[in-house]
């Protein structure tokens, strides 16, 4: 193998699994250390800079970082990264003085944003400090988009949402609420320099089954029903509720139902329990509230008697997987199952809808009626129009929308300055030794063996009574500290300097997880089999040095390195050093 090029920032970035997995690439270990140090405000600002909504995300994020956490590979449960973010948000001081200054004198460029969800708000936050004049249009009465309409208050209190939305709306942004934009052409005719479309995936999918027409009065689309509850148009539901679907919206629907009158609430899903799209913790939360999940049940019919919904019938199926892992749901042949219901919520997916975008604006649409959007620049085929969030590539999640927003803002800024949107600024990267003494590091290199701490919850009796009572209480500061100590500091990189190495084997002998080997070089596949411990996780790189005096190379398998620093402590010549790698994605107006 060729020597690893550690000057390429993507190499060490990949070692910080959580940050790499985060769509916005938030420097996770950096803020976790700040939380451990009790520096909550700074921890919050590291987050705010990168993901814009730390308090919201600390409660609602899909957490792509957590399955990626190295802890999963050496212990079992990942660090509770998401809930630590909330610790920073809950304990921070007033941050208004730390927010970027908004220039009084504008730069003369006007940007319109359609939709006031996380993607648009991110674009606004990045562009307002640069002097852009920003107009936001949204059909709801306040900003936040789906964070306001679809995430129930028992998961995300309105006060938290308002606070973080308002940081942005207070940046001199002109927001027009309660307005439905029916024509993109009209917006473009207002001579904006650029338009950002962040209208989400607002249309819920339905199931057209026999009986639906007669049952209509008691069948709702999940996301519409959730927003109707959020905006207090709907205050109750029947005693017996069936929720169709296995995603997070289904979980929100069933849990909301429990709070507005549903007593016998059940989730019915076609797939096996393990294949459900809902996050494991959301399924657990539903179970905690006494909501059963019936899996392997395919809905067949709405049963209506005397013009009123009685319930639904389901066909029991079994999931069969072929050699390639493709699933088919095969009926078991058992009798159809009938379940009684007063109301049915359909939460089987949502999709994009652009009836308001005229097709003669130079914006190309594909065969699925989705706009053709560049995956890196978020520019459509009309160079003035940018898309982001769910409206760009279909339903994802908040953190993805934020990531899109940052990149779209970079593009809009480049575009308005007459530069190429392809000319992306490189990330900000620093790599600095953490050595404080012969055997001392500026980070806590001891590896805590504690198992993941559980976030305390308010008593069930209280939370089920009122849909606005937040279920999770968040970690207190002491537990937050202990959970933060579980972080392995994967950004403290093991940096190897072959010129200094005397090949004494001290690092090999001390490494608790047998990551380091000194072997003759070879092709990667063959080399992986010859290391001190099997390097079978192909998703994790091998760090290979240049040739050493004995014509061997140092090979480090990054997979289960604990970043404990013992290799560097036991190295007599400081050929190993622990260096903190800080990687920040460049934002609009930054030159990398």
């Amino acid at each position, binding site marked *: 193998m060729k020597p690893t090029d550690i000057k390429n920032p993507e190499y060490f970035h990949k070692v910080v699994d959580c940050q790499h997995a985060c769509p916005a690439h938030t420097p996770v270990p950096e803020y976790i250390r700040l939380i451990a140090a009790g520096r909550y405000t700074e921890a919050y600002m590291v987050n705010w800079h990168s993901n814009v909504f730390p308090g919201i995300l600390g409660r609602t994020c899909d957490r792509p970082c957590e399955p990626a956490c190295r802890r999963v590979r050496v212990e079992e449960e990942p660090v509770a990264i998401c809930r630590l973010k909330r610790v920073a948000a809950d304990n921070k001081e007033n941050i208004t003085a730390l927010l970027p200054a908004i220039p009084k004198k504008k730069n003369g460029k006007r940007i319109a944003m359609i939709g006031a969800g996380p993607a648009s708000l991110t674009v606004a936050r990045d562009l307002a400090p640069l002097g852009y004049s920003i107009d936001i249009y949204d059909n709801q009465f306040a900003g936040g988009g789906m964070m306001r309409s679809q995430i129930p208050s028992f998961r995300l209190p309105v006060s938290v949402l308002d606070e973080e939305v308002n940081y942005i709306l207070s940046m001199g942004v002109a927001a027009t609420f309660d307005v439905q934009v029916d024509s993109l052409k009209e917006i473009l005719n207002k001579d904006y320099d650029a338009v950002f479309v962040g209208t989400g995936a607002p249309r819920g999918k339905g199931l057209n089954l026999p009986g639906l027409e007669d049952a209509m009065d008691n069948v709702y689309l999940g996301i519409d029903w959730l927003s109707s509850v959020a905006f207090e148009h709907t205050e109750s539901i029947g005693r017996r509720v069936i929720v169709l679907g296995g995603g997070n919206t289904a979980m929100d629907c069933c849990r909301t139902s429990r709070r507005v009158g549903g007593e016998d609430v059940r989730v019915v899903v076609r797939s096996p329990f393990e294949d459900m799209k809902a996050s494991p913790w959301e399924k657990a939360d539903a179970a905690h509230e006494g909501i059963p999940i019936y899996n392997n049940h395919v809905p067949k019919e709405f049963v209506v008697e005397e013009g009123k919904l009685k319930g639904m019938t389901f066909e029991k199926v079994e999931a069969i997987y072929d050699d390639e892992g493709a699933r088919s749901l095969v009926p078991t042949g058992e009798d159809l199952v009938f379940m009684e219901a007063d109301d049915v919520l359909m939460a089987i997916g949502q999709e994009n809808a652009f009836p308001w975008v005229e097709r003669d604006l130079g914006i190309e649409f594909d065969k699925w009626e989705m706009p053709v959007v560049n995956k890196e620049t978020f520019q459509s085929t009309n160079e003035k129009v940018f898309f982001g969030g769910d409206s760009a590539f279909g339903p994802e999640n908040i953190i993805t929308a934020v990531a899109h927003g940052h990149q779209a803002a970079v593009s809009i800024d480049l575009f308005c300055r007459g530069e190429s949107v392809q000319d992306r600024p490189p990330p900000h990267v620093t790599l600095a030794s953490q050595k404080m003494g012969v055997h001392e590091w500026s980070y806590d290199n001891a590896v805590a*063996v504690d198992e993941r701490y559980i976030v305390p919850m308010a008593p069930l009796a209280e939370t089920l009574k009122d849909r606005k009572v937040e279920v999770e209480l968040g970690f207190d500061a002491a537990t937050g500290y202990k959970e933060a100590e579980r972080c392995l500091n994967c950004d403290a990189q093991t940096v190897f300097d072959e010129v200094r190495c005397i*090949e*004494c084997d*001290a690092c090999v002998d001390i490494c*608790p997880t047998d990551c380091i080997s000194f072997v003759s070089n070879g092709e990667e596949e063959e080399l992986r089999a010859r290391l001190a411990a*099997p390097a079978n996780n192909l998703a994790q790189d091998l760090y290979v040095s240049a040739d050493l005096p004995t014509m061997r190379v140092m090979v480090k398998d990054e997979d289960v390195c604990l970043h404990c620093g013992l290799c560097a402590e036991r190295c*007599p010549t400081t050929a190993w050093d622990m260096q903190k790698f800080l990687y920040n994605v460049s934002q609009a107006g930054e030159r990398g």
Partner: protein
Amino acid sequence: MSYQVPKFRHPGLPLNELGYTKADYEGAISTLCAGCGHDSISGAIVRACHEMSIEPHKIAKLSGIGCSSKAPTYFLGNSHGFNAVHGRMPSVVTGAALANRELLYMGVSGDGDTASIGMGQFAHAARRNLNMVYIVMNNGCYGLTKGQDSATADRGSATKKGDPNIYSAIDLCGTALQMGATFVARSFSGDKEQLVPLIKAAISHRGFALIDVVSPCVTFNNNPQSTKSYEFVREHSEATGTIDFVPLKKEITAEYQAGQSYEVTMHDGSSIHLYKVDETLDPFDRRSAISTLEEHRYTGNILTGLIYMNKDSRDLHEVMDTSQRPLNQLDEADLCPGNKMLLNINASLR
């Protein structure tokens, strides 16, 4: 400063026949200097014992005084241990071995502990062919007392702050051969590929097995004027050959070239394969071993690998016809066989 090694281990660590991982053979975190060769030797012992599937409670590790003799704390944390008086480890092993021949005795000593204060003990343990592994962590200096030249320092070699040594060096391999040791090898802490199979062979050998391991002292004796530095040893070592250790239950799969390799069946049924590199050496002939050692001393090179092995070794137990059973398992009837037996003995002496 880290005072303990993290508890987590590589999830894919191989298990040996007993179901143990290498981690089960480790000891406490080392307090030796960073880069000390002794830690690598500890690592090699851990590997050898793990790979041979030796039950940890069937091993006794014994040592004297010195950096080397601290080392047993850092390996085989689940085995028996005894830290003896300076240079007196062989006596303690002798006593322990006579009391219980079922344990594997792993003596760990240094150049000071062996070649200076313990020279007499070392010589007699070799002469008696005590069934033990005797590992010398040889760094040519007294590291624990700030690096003075030891008795194995070569003439002309200098430590970091010292003058060139004016005395001639004791060659422990040569001494052991002269004293009647039945297994003599030399290795280098920085070469586990050679050291691990040598330790395995030494463990399988029945009788006194010396491995003199050059183990650089990074703090006092790893400078350009030293003949026991990492760099010097790498440049000047010449291997007698390479050896492969084949455990008893494992089928031999490698192909061995005729004429250049020897297969030797060890006392415990395992075997070693020796690939000769040095044409002049016959490792089963003591005269050849002694003259090859002398030859290398003359040219200033360090001869490593298996230097001598007596295939017909008869250890102390065999020679003395000692009790097969450990003494602590003998009951009163065994120890006081009664008046009739005494009369028989007396009669036999008349």
